[in-house]
C-alpha cells in the first residue's frame, strides 16, 4: 500500500463488565473483540452490521469517548493519547455526528452558540468562532440571518442534523465519524443530508467513517465497507466489490435480506433464521457458525482469522483458509 492510513486500529477490544453474580464471578459483554482495520485518508469507510455487533462501540472507541480494554488507535502515525498526540489535540481532528440530533445539542444554547462552543474551548476568540459558525451555517444550507439565533426545538430533524454537522466541522477536523447520522431522517430529507455530506467532504478534504444499518445508503456513500458481526470484523472490501461479490456467508445473508423492490420476484426465503446471539457468551470458534448456512463441525472449534488489513478484500472465514479443516467439496458448491 502506498498511502499511509490516516487511522490505524490495532487489536481494539472493549469488554463491558456485568454485575457480579453470587459467586463473585462477573460476566462481560464482548462488545468489540480484537479488531484491526485502517481508515485511508480521503476515503469514506462504511461500517455495517446488526444491533449488538459493536459498530457504535467501535465509533466511541475511535473517538476515545470510552476507554478500550485493550488495543490502540494510531492517528497519522502517532499513538492517540501518547506524548506526540494528547487526547485534546486528537479530538480536534476527529469529530462525531450522532443519530439523535435532538439529544446531542444543548437545548439552552442557540445554534450559533452550539457551533461556536467547540472552537472557544480550543482557544478561538468568541468573535471569530461566531463568524466561523455563521460561515458553516451558510455551508450546510441554513441561512444564518434566519437560523443563527434559534434554539434546537425550533428546528426540524433534518435542520438539527445540519447543525450537528456544522458543529462537527467547526474545529476543522480531518475525520468525521457519522454514527447512524441519517438513520432517523425521512427519506427525502436523508437524501438532502447525504448530498450535503458528499459536498462537504470534497470542500474540506474530509475522511468519513460512516456507520449505518441501511445497506443501500452505505453502498451509496462508501468507498470501502467493513462488515461486523458480534464484535468482530468479518469482511472488508471496496464497496462495489463487496456488494457485488460478498465473500463471507454472513455478508451474503445480510445483503440478501434487503427487500427486493420487485413485486414479481419477492423474497421467498430468509437467508438465515433467528436473531444474532448474545455477545455475553458468543459462540465458540467462528461466531457466525450457529446461524451459518454452510457451517461445518470445524467452524465450532476453530476461529477464523481476518486477513491483513492491508490486503484488498480481507475475509474472516475458514472457507478461505487453506488447510483449515473445512471440507473443500462444500466450498466449491458455495462459491459456484
Amino acid at each position, binding site marked *: 500500500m502506498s498511502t499511509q492510513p490516516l487511522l490505524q486500529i490495532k487489536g481494539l477490544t472493549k469488554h463491558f463488565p456485568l454485575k457480579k453474580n453470587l459467586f463473585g464471578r462477573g460476566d462481560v459483554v464482548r462488545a468489540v473483540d480484537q479488531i484491526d482495520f485502517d481508515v485511508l485518508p480521503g476515503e469514506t469507510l462504511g461500517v455495517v452490521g*446488526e444491533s449488538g455487533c459493536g459498530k457504535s462501540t467501535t465509533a466511541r472507541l475511535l473517538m476515545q469517548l470510552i476507554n478500550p480494554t485493550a488495543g490502540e488507535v494510531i492517528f497519522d502515525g502517532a499513538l492517540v493519547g501518547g506524548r506526540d498526540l494528547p487526547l485534546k489535540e486528537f479530538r480536534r481532528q476527529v469529530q462525531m455526528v450522532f443519530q439523535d440530533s435532538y439529544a446531542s445539542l444543548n437545548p439552552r444554547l442557540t445554534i450559533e452558540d452550539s457551533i461556536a462552543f467547540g472552537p472557544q474551548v480550543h482557544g478561538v476568540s468568541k468573535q471569530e468562532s461566531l463568524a466561523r459558525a455563521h460561515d458553516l451555517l451558510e455551508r450546510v444550507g441554513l441561512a444564518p440571518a434566519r437560523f443563527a439565533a434559534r434554539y434546537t426545538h425550533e428546528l426540524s430533524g433534518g435542520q438539527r442534523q445540519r447543525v450537528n454537522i456544522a458543529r462537527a466541522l467547526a474545529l476543522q477536523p480531518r475525520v468525521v465519524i457519522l454514527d447512524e447520522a441519517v438513520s432517523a431522517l425521512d427519506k427525502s430529507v436523508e*437524501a*438532502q443530508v447525504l448530498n450535503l455530506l458528499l459536498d462537504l467532504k470534497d470542500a474540506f478534504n474530509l475522511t468519513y467513517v460512516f456507520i449505518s444499518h441501511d445497506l443501500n445508503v452505505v453502498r451509496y456513500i462508501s468507498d470501502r465497507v467493513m462488515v461486523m458481526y458480534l464484535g468482530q470484523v468479518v469482511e472488508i472490501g471496496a464497496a462495489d466489490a463487496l456488494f457485488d461479490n460478498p465473500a463471507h456467508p454472513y455478508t451474503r445473508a445480510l445483503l440478501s435480506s434487503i427487500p427486493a423492490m420487485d413485486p414479481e420476484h419477492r*423474497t421467498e*426465503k430468509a437467508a438465515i433464521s433467528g436473531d444474532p446471539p448474545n455477545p455475553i457468551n458468543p459462540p465458540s470458534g467462528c461466531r457466525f457458525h450457529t446461524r451459518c448456512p454452510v457451517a461445518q463441525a470445524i467452524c465450532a472449534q476453530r476461529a477464523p482469522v481476518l486477513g491483513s488489513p492491508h490486503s484488498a478484500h480481507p475475509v474472516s472465514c475458514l472457507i478461505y483458509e487453506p488447510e483449515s479443516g473445512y471440507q473443500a467439496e462444500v466450498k466449491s458448491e458455495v462459491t459456484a
Partner: protein
Amino acid sequence: MTTPYVSIENLNVTFTGGARPVKAVNGVDLRVNRSEVVALIGESGSGKSVTLRSVLRLHNERRTIMTGSIRVGEQDVLKLSAGALADFRGKTAAMIFQEPLLALDPVYSVGAQIVESIRRHENVTHADAHKRALELFERVRIPSPERRLDAYPHEMSGGMRQRAMIALALACKPQLLLADEPTTALDATVQIQVLLLLRELQREFGLSVIFVTHDIGAAVEVADRIAVMYAGRIVEEGPVATLLRAPRHPYTLALLRSRAHGAMEKVDGKRPQLETISGAPPDLSLPQTGCAFAPRCTLANDACKLTQPEANTITAGHSARCLRLDATA
C-alpha cells in the same frame, strides 16, 4: 364489485390538545377487500399511523375530533359503544406495533397475556386457552415455545418479541390486522424473516391487512396495493407494480428517486448526487389552501396553490390527487 371489508370514508382527525389544533388527517378514503394487504406509506407526520390508529379508536377521545366514517365488516367503528368497542378490539381487528417492548405488559409473562386475551373474548377454560397460546407460538416459529410462554417480554430478543406480539394479535382470530411499522426497529436479517412470516400468516388466515411503513421496500414485500400519504391525505394509490413502475404523483416520483437504491451507477468514478425534494412537509396546525405538496413541487403552477386536487382515476384502481397529471405521464 364486491363490497370492501374495510371502508374508510372522508376521515378527518384533528388533535386539540396543543396550543393550536393540528389537522393530522384531512379526508382519507381507503377501502380494503377481504384477504387484501394495503400498505400506507409516507414520511413522519403524513398521517399514516394516525389513520391506522383511528380504526381501533386508539386516540384519546377528549383531545381528538374524528369525523367521517370507518366501517369494518358490518360495524361502524366511530359509532360503537364502549363495550362494543372492547369486543371489537382484538376480536375483529388487532394491531401490532413497532416496539413490542412498549406494547407488551412487562409484569406478565407473554403466555399469560395471550391467555387473558383469548379468555376475554371467548368462553374457554384456562387450559384450553393455554393450549392455543402454545399452538400460536409454534405457528409464529418461536424456538422452544413451551418454555417461552413463561418468559417475560424483556427476556426475549427483539425478533422473538415481535413474533410474540404477532401471536398475541392473532390469538382471537381477527379478520383485520393493523400493522404499525412492525419491522422498522428490527435488524435487516430479522426484518425479512418477520415480513415473510406476516405474508405467510396473511395467506393462511385470509387476513385483511393495513400495513403502515415508511420503507417502500418492506411494503413491496407484503402489499397488494400501496397508498402514499402526504400531509394527511392519500395522494396516490394503486397496485404495487403500477405504483413502482408508473407513479404519477410528483411526490411519489420524487420519493422513489430520492432513494439511494437508484443511484448506484458511478459517473466518472463518482456516484451521482441524489435527487432530493427541497424544503419540508407543511405544518398541519396552519390552514392549508391548495395542494399541500405545491410549495415543494417542481411542477406546481398557480392553480396548484389555490385548488385542493380531487383524486383522479388514471387506470382502474390507480388514482392520484394532482392537477398536473398531464406533466407526469
